Each structure stands twice: as C-alpha cells, then as structure tokens.
C-alpha cells in the first residue's frame, strides 16, 4: 500500500479556502492527544488555551498587542516568500530595529527633547531593519550565497549585539546591575489607545501595513511582478521582470517592517531595551505567513490566532501547570498541517494497494 499524488488539472479554489481550517482542526486533535499524554484534562486545557483568553477584556487587548509584531513581520515575509526569496532572519531584523530605535531613546534620555523623538525612533528602526535584511539579499544576488543560511546567522549576531549593549554601554546605572536600559521617557514611548489599557498605537500601524500590502499585491504592477517571479520564474524572465531587483526589494521591505515591529515592541509594551524582548516573533511570523496563505487579510487573521496561542499558553501554564514549550510544539505541528493541506490544493491524494491497480488507474 502506498500513497500516490495526482496533479489536479487546476488549483482547487475551495480547498485553498478551507485548508487552513482543516489544518487547525487536525492540530487541535493532535493537541488533545498530547495533553492526554501529559496527564492533563484535554478539554480543560483547550478551554484554557483557546476560550478563556477570549472572555475577558484584558486578555483580548493582550492578544491584539501580541498580534501586532506577528502581523507586521509576517506581511513582510509573505512578500519575500511570494517572490521565492527565503528570508528566515526576521528575528534578527526585529532585534536590530529595536536596538537602532532605542539608541535615540537612550541618547535623549532625561533631556528636553520634544515630540520628534518617537517618529525618529520608528524611522531609524525601519531603516536599520531594512539595511540588516539587505546583507543576505546582496550576498544572494551579488555572490549567490544562500539567503536562508546568511539571514539566519545574522539572527545570532543581532542577539549578541543587543546583549552587549544592554550589559555594557547602555546599561541603566540605577538598574541594580540588571542587563537593561533605563525606562524610556514618555516622548520615546508608543502612546496607548485607551488610558490604563494595553492596546497601543502600534496595532493601528499594523492594520495600515495590512491595507498597504493588500493594495500593493492586488492593485499594482510591482505586486504582480512579485507574484509572477515567485510562481513562474521563466515567464517572469520572458516578461522582462528583474528577479534580483525583487529579491532586494522584498528583503528591504520585510526587514523594514520587522525593524519597525521591533521598536514598537520595545517602546510600547516593554518600555525599555533588554535581552529576551522577543519570544521568537520572527520565527512564529513564518507560521503566520503560511497559515494566512501569504495573503494580507489571511495573515491578519492568522496573526490574531497565533497571538491567542501565546496568551492561552501563558494562562494554561498558570492555571494548569502546562509547560510553555507546549505552545512551541503547537505552532510547529500547526505549520506541518498547514503545509500538508496546501499540498491538497495542487494534488489529489490516493492510497493505492498494489502496483497493478496503479497501472489500471493510469490507463
């Protein structure tokens, strides 16, 4: 008995729409088994993960806060992946953006610098993220070095740079030797949307990014070029589209968005620069991009869903002592099912029991 893939005559539109839902369903089923193995009541665990966070206002705000960096990074990554450029170092671009933006916050600390500080921080973070992402992009188009490996190596370098800065030159002198900068001044902080709440201006920026990406991909020639270069490289070459230029462009845009997400996280919910500002947003955003089917609106929904798993994971840890790593396992399994279900769009799966049936089926 073995599995045979048959190419569909055309992409299945129905399956393209329902495949993320099938994937989520299969993941939940797998999680039930995993919870049972861990000796936890699966129904209570699922409730703590996916229902409880939706029932109080604070958690709902927290989901939007967590979804903000995920959606911003994933939108950028989706442009790269559509153009068949593999940026997997968004985590590093996120950290470098956070570092670059924090530089202004640290330097203006305690001075009477005005309202220009925050916009300058956002701008510098985006530029720094873009430049950092251009390193693997240029290595790729100029020298042919694998962008997958170089962009990932840069994550470790960004992490160590941040570590050096907050333990060395930027450490808060009144911080009891903790590796952190001082709390940012109010002018260097992303304003809250609701007084006393958690929701901040960054979530609005994320929504604007989603809208901009939807217009770029759906309504502009550049968006069309990106999709053609990824889906049909030969056709793109005949069409005179410059694939290398698109690698540079998509990497720069995704780096800028990741950098922006980094400074928004630091100047928003965190409030100062310290190691561990990201629970792996840059990597989770890869899952968000695929779960959202590389579509801006899909990514928005997928980002909210994965943010829910972060919040749910924290609550399940507090309420039921379920280890935090379960969230990572959940995210990994989800990505597998998403990819497997995507295969259904292009192929029909058939189980074949002997070689003779194969011949008959084809004849």
């Amino acid at each position: 008995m073995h599995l045979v893939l048959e190419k569909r005559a055309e992409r299945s539109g129905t399956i393209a729409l329902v495949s993320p839902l099938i994937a989520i369903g299969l993941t939940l089923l797998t999680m039930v088994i995993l919870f049972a193995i861990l000796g936890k009541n699966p129904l209570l665990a699922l409730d703590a993960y996916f229902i409880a966070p939706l029932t109080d206002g604070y958690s709902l705000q927290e989901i939007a806060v967590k979804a903000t960096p995920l959606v911003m990074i994933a939108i950028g990554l989706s442009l790269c992946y559509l153009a068949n450029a593999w940026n997997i170092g968004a985590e590093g671009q996120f950290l470098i953006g956070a570092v670059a933006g924090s530089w202004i916050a640290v330097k203006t600390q305690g001075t009477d610098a005005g309202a220009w500080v925050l916009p300058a921080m956002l701008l510098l973070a985006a530029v720094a993220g873009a430049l950092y992402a251009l390193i693997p992009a240029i290595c790729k188009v100029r020298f042919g070095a694998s962008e997958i490996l170089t962009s990932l190596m840069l994550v470790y370098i960004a992490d160590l740079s941040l570590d050096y800065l907050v333990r060395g030159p930027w450490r808060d002198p009144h911080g009891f030797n903790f590796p952190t900068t001082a709390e940012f001044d109010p002018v260097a902080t992303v304003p809250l949307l609701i007084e006393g709440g958690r929701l901040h201006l960054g979530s609005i920026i994320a929504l604007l990014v989603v809208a901009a990406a939807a217009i770029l991909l759906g309504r502009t020639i550049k968006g069309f070029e990106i999709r053609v270069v990824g889906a049909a490289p030969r056709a793109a070459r005949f069409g005179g589209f410059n694939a290398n230029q698109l690698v540079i462009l998509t990497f720069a845009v995704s780096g800028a968005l990741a950098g922006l997400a980094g400074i928004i996280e630091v100047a928003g919910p965190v409030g100062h620069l310290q190691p561990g500002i990201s629970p792996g947003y840059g990597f989770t955003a890869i899952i968000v991009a695929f779960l959202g089917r590389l579509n801006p609106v899909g990514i928005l929904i997928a980002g909210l869903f994965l943010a829910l798993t972060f919040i749910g994971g924290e609550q399940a840890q507090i309420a039921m002592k379920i280890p935090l790593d379960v969230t990572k396992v959940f995210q990994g399994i989800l990505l597998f099912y998403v990819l497997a279900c995507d295969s259904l769009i292009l192929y029909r799966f058939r189980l074949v029991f002997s070689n003779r049936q194969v011949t008959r089926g084809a004849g």
Partner: protein
Amino acid sequence: MELVEAIILSVLAASTPLLIAATGELLTERSGVLNLGVEGMMIMGAACGFAGAWLSGSILVGALCGMVAGTLMSLIFALMALGLAVNQVATGLALTILGVGLSGLIGAGFVGERITPAAHLDIPGLTDIPFIGNVLFGQDAFVYLSLALIVGVWWFLYRTRPGLILRACGDNHLSAHALGYPVLRIRTLAVMFGGACAGLAGAYLPLAYTPFFIPGMTAGRGWIALALVVFSSWRPGRLVVGAYLFGAVTILQLHAQGWGVGIPSQFMSALPYLATIIVLVLLSRARTGGSTAPAALGTVFVPDR
C-alpha cells in the same frame, strides 16, 4: 606545548558534532533533498540522548536514543517533503520549530541532572606518548566514529553502485526514475540517514561535550552544519577540513575570551556565525563557472505513471 595540546583536544571535541551532522546532511543533499531541519533533529537528539543515558546509565543507550529520535524526526520530514511533495525549505523550517519545542518538553525533567560523560580511549603506552598520544589515542568513541562515518560515506558515494544511483537521483531524478530506480525510496533512506546522524550529533553534546542538558544547547550548530555542506561543495574530503576549521574558530574565540584580549565577549561569541557568512559569500563567489550543488537539490519530485 601543553596549551597547544589542550587547544587541539578542545577543537576535536567542538568539531565532532558539526562533522557528524554535516556528514548526514551531505548524503541527504547528494540524493537531491534539502533538509533544513538539522537544528531541530539535533536538539531532539540531545534531549532524547540525555534522557536515554540518564535513565539507563549507559552512554551507548543514550547515543542510540538520540539516533532514533533524529530518525523519527527525519521521517516526518520525508513524509511531508517526499510523500506529500511539500516545499522542502518550509518543511525543514517547520521541523526545526517543532524540534525546539518538543525537546524543551522532553528535556524539562532532566535539566539540572548530570551524567558521567563518555569515556575516553586509554591504551597504556600509546596514549602516554607525549603530545600526539592523547590527540590520536585518547579521544571518546564519538570522535573516532565521526571520522569512520565520513570515510564510509565517501566510500559509499564514490566506490559503490548504490552510491552512484543515489548521486544520480540527486542530479537528475527524472532520468533515475526513467531507468527504473525508486527515487522516492532512495531519498527517504538518505533522509533517514541524515536524521540518524543529526540525532547522534545532538546526543554528543550532553553525552560527551558537557555532561548535562540545557534547552537550546545546540545553539545553531545544525545551521552551521548546513553551511558546512555548502562549504564542502558536497565533497566528503572538504567537509572534514571545514568542520575542523569551524571547530577551531569556536575554540579560539573561547580562549581569546579567557586571555582577556579586551574585546567584548559577545563579539567573540558572534565569530563562528560571522565566519559562516563570510565563508558562504567567498565560496559562492569563487564558484562562477556553474554550481557544484546536486542539480536536483531541493526540487519536488512526483513520479508520473
């Protein structure tokens, strides 16, 4: 002199996991499959290897557990990338994300425990020879195994018929299929070999390198192993050179930190990653006259009937 000997010994130890993991990935890639999940398979090998050794009290059982864990992970990859024709890059990333989470879950109960690390060879007379004795005859079994493994892979690829068929699958799967070779089965076996090697390389870390397990202890070694395969131009001989060079960079930065050169430790720790990027750029640049990579590397193959 003693310092030089100490450095050589620690370079050998640091290079061995890179060499083992890269050897497995080299064979996998020669069959035409790009498995980016090495890091995930390694960290699973580390967690399961330590669990096995701690529960059984035997390093051998631990190493086997690591290999089994790596192989099982690679089977998930094979099912997805070969069975369901899913994009290999995305599947490999998924495997790493899953491996990091799952290893944290499995290893959580063992954090803080210690075991007796793998014994070193000791031949009276030979091991006592000054300087070279310890380097040549005083290593743990993993070091010798890693060298036997790479020689074995070289011999398999270039001196046997199955090795020739495997390389044919990697260079042109359509031709190999047309000649009647079971491309997907051969590739599955190659992926499993890569998984077993990655698992063993991961297990080496808590069983011989440091006698305890910490989450995320592979620290990007799986990715460096992937870069080493590119560095080697998919040739076993160069892989050995590359692995020891990288081991040397890792160790030199550690020693430099000890000497207090005045450079912040974080910059020294970044050196192996920086070196990887520079090497990738230089090598890719040198290779202007066509790529040396297996021609079908990373492409999807669905047999038509």
